[in-house]
């Protein structure tokens, strides 16, 4: 009985600061510290899912352009994905330049998508911006769709001769990766 009386007694004045007891403070502090700790533990658990250093290190590709004639194209590999390197014919360049920019879903000119003075070299990822299939059309015997560029067989997206999306579900033009001309006949991608 005597012990109960002690426990039930109101806390000593020295324990109270603005109505909060010392125990409340310890509670909040402990839960906060545990919460911050839990968040800190989440960081490595989430971050480990991102591309690892070896995947990131393997991220530049050099392509020799010397053997590619106008109208031809090759598929190179960049970051484990196909890279379309296509040398446009004058007719294809003219077709791409004739399209009014305002009619495009993802408005870009051929000049913006190629290097200046190298308009004939159309270098894009061979990855449909819809759900990532490899479009057909890098080889002229494949289906190039209505616009003479690329045609994705998965869901029917069609790209023009500047690899711009013209029809179908894809939201964006085929991605132009970062690249530089090292010489007139060699590029470095990435």
């Amino acid at each position, binding site marked *: 009985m005597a012990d109960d009386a002690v426990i039930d007694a109101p806390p000593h004045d020295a324990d109270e600061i603005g109505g909060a007891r010392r125990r409340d403070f310890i509670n909040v502090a402990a839960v906060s510290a545990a919460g911050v700790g839990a968040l800190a533990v989440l960081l490595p658990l989430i971050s480990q899912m991102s591309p*690892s250093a070896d995947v990131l290190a393997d991220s530049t590709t050099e392509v020799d352009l010397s053997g590619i004639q106008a109208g031809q194209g090759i598929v190179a590999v960049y970051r*484990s994905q196909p890279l379309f390197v296509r040398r446009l014919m004058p007719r294809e360049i003219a077709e791409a330049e004739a399209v009014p920019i305002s009619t495009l879903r993802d408005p870009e000119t051929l000049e913006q998508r190629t290097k200046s003075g190298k308009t004939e070299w159309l270098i894009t990822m061979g990855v449909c911006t819809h759900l*990532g*299939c*490899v*479009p057909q059309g890098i080889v002229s015997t494949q289906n190039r769709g209505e616009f003479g560029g690329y045609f*994705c067989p*998965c869901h029917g997206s069609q790209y023009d001769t500047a690899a711009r999306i013209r029809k179908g*579900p894809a*939201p964006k033009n085929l991605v132009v990766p970062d690249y530089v001309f090292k010489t007139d006949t060699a590029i470095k991608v990435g």
Partner: protein
Amino acid sequence: MSFPWANHYKPSHPFMVYLDEKLPLPRFVYNAIGAGYPVPRNLNYMWNFGVLAGFCLLLQIVTGVVLAMHYAANSGIAFDSVEHIMRDVNYGWLLRYAHANGASAFFAVVYIHIFRGFFYGSYKPPREMIWLLGVAIFLLMMATAFMGYVLPWGQMSYWGAQVITGLFSAIPIVGNGLHTWLLGGFAPVDATLNRFYALHFLLPFVILGMIILHIWSLHIPGSSNPTGVEVKSESDTVPFHPYYTAKDGFGLGCFLVVYCLMMFYAPNALGHPDNYIPANPMQTPAHIVPEWYFWPFYAILRAFTQDFFMIPAKLMGVLAMFSSILVWFFLPWLDRSPVRSGHYRPLHRKFFWVLVADVVLLGWCGGSPAEEPYVMISQLAAVYYFVHFLIVLPIVSSIEKPEPLPFSITESVLGKDDQAALAGAPASA
């Protein structure tokens, strides 16, 4: 909880008495799926599919764990390790075919289980929590099945992984980063295969846990039944064991006959031949299709070819595909009819079959190439799918005049219920 007339567990053997004191697991089983669980006496074979789904999960776990002892989750040798299972491992062909066809069987029985719920209004209160858990289980099943299909690292595996993870890149702003994070690379790579393997091993056990919750919540109101009339008295029920253990056992036997016919005589009928070609990141198969059980949802994904309300077509397709399942979560509140069973709901019953036809049509389109007329049909069928749940169901449930319900389950079975006479209720004879 159970009905007051439920049988009580009475261990007779001294060891069982001892065990009951220390760890009442036999009592738990007795009350869950034994003679201690009173079940409506009028359940038809549509009520067999929950047990079958549980059986399929166990089948997948057992065959999956043994396959895991021979499979190598490395993009360089995964394909070869599957061929090794098929050719070199003792009974490896049997185990792999059992697992691959087991996935199809699992989805087949779960689809029947879900559509049973649609027809009989099983999702209605007081059973809405069972339904919500069930939809969550279905989503987990879809994730598990998708990741399992990636593991053989064939062409369909690889490009399926590319397309399905590509769905997440449709999300504005964070999409591309999320896509790379999910894959652990810029395209499906070794890291992708490894994480899918780890999750494919983990998720079935999460599903198992969810199923325990699903059954737990089922045992609070007790099983529904084909009349949709709640249990009123002891004469409405029979003990689960031996009545439904026997009936489910017979159903399981019939199921196994069909399953074994598929597994032994047409083991690749539901698969795609392209998945026997090793994954090639440089070449997309001309016609990417998921497994048959995803076709209806895949058709909805592909139905959006034009931007819509300022939302890009790609994002719209992804939203629609996820919504097509998420809408099931709202079903208990979209269907406002006080009557549960389709047997007494003349309009609901008709629209149920329209929905079945619509989903089959979507499935047919989803398995076909992305060209006309399939695209147009997918679009119309996808619109109807959402119209059914969001417009038809609420309207039908408020304008429909239900047919008279039997007084009780007993009356529906025997044609009369003495208690109905006592209660002064008109016998529907």
